[in-house]
């Protein structure tokens, strides 16, 4: 059983380093925009992605007023990077045009929070939740204002 499978690079011993950037630490300890309503009120949209089994599960809720995201909140089951990403993203989106929900740019988040590349999959789940929000908004509004195209 030859275990030294790759002569050039040793296999990583583990995936979790428990080394987080100060921003991630802070968001983890004091998450912002936490909490969702049990029942949606008018002008509220919700997106959900992932699951317990997948190891990451995110719910995003936003209040929309005239094409603007007023409040954006979340709940999450996930690793510290996921939680921090939700915090930062919801902060960023508050006040933005609703179309920003589908202008997800993971590089920006990765850089700001120092998220390792192995965690890319978790950001895709966040992206899916945001996209679902947008889709719901489109459906609920029964219109496409022409500014936002579902790409």
């Amino acid at each position, binding site marked *: *059983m030859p275990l030294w499978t790759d002569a050039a690079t040793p296999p990583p011993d583990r995936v*979790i380093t*428990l080394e987080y950037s100060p921003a991630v630490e802070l968001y*983890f300890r004091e998450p912002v925009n936490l909490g969702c309503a049990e029942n949606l009120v008018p002008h509220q949209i919700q997106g959900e992605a992932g699951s*317990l*089994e997948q190891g990451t599960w995110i719910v995003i809720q936003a209040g929309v007023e005239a094409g603007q995201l007023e409040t954006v909140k979340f*709940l999450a*089951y996930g690793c*510290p990077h996921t*939680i921090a990403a939700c915090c930062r993203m919801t902060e960023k989106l508050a006040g933005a045009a609703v179309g920003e929900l589908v202008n997800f740019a993971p590089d920006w988040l990765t850089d700001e929070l120092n998220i390792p590349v192995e965690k890319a999959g978790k950001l895709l789940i966040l992206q899916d939740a945001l996209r679902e929000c947008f889709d719901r908004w489109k459906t609920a509004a029964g219109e496409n204002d022409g500014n936002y195209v579902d790409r």
Partner: protein
Amino acid sequence: MELPVYLDNASTTPLDPRVADAMVRCLQSSDGFGNPSTDTHALGRKARAQVEAARDQVAALINAARGDIIWTSGATESDNLALMGAASYRRVRGHHLVTSATEHKAVLSTCQHLEQQGFRITYLEPDRDGLIEPEAVKAAITSDTILVSIMHANNEIGVVHDIAGIGAVCREADVLFHVDAAQSAGRLPLDVQRQCIDLLSVTAHKMYGPKGIGALFLNRQRLGRIEPLMHGGAQERGLRPGTLPTHQIVGMGKAFELAASDMDQDIVRIASLRDRLWDGIRSVPGVVLNGHPQQRLCSILCVSVGGVEGESLMFGLRDLAVTSGAACNSATDEPSYVLRSLGRSDQLAHSSIRFSLGRFTTAEEVDFAATSFRQAVDHLHGMLPDRHAIASG
């Protein structure tokens, strides 16, 4: 109280200061450095005497004869030597071994290696409490079986197997019985004679002794011969060549001596701390205990939490030095395969936390750990998209 609070004694223990003293004395003495295999000058003989005194100390704790103890570099080597040495030599008699799916990797990987060499291995699945019963071993033994290897106490969940019962089954079937006692030595009484053990692996660093030194007990009468893993000088009866590390052996001997004298009171004290910890966290929503509630080590408390993500739980517990199911580290104990074989969901396996207490754990530390745990879980449950998930975990 120093942070992090060390509750990872099943991974490795701090050195007992009395062991450290013995080792330091040996390291600093001007005449303790001779080669113990050289008995043609006084410096070698002095080292040899220390090695043999330590052999007595180790033998005494497990009720073995001094001559049946072989020094190794740790339980990993002892496990390898026991399984490969006995299997290779006995292959003329049979090709079948019986072990459990929840053994340490040192046993499991060695068994996988033996499979590649033409042996057949039965990996017994534990029951929901993590236990392998003697009857299950009995049922697995065939006329081709040469060896059974079952650990005394499991390193992750701390359950304790009925070694005497399994030993009796093996003796009756005339099959060799190997026991990995890395976790139990010093934490449970051991008696190789009464428990019908033919091969027993121990390591010093799990019982307040130094890392890098272990021993294998071999019942010479029953084993006859065994094939060495390494080849070289005739140290340790040709079974384990290499210069003997006197200071390491002295440390291991001292650790075993202390285990003999302190074990009874250690067990009572540590078990009561473990219960105190459990009392402090059992009411936390979603908490489940892994492994049999009674038949377990005084020192290990392994729990999982529904609706909590493992890595975030670990980070929430960063003031505690514990082992987590989320940190599947292939180099040390990887808990998840044990929990999965108990039927735990991936979520629960991932959110498992092994608290392992030791001789130097205090009530204050345990209380701090309980509080940290409650707070960390509450914090994460507060973010959970659906609180029903706490129970469904």
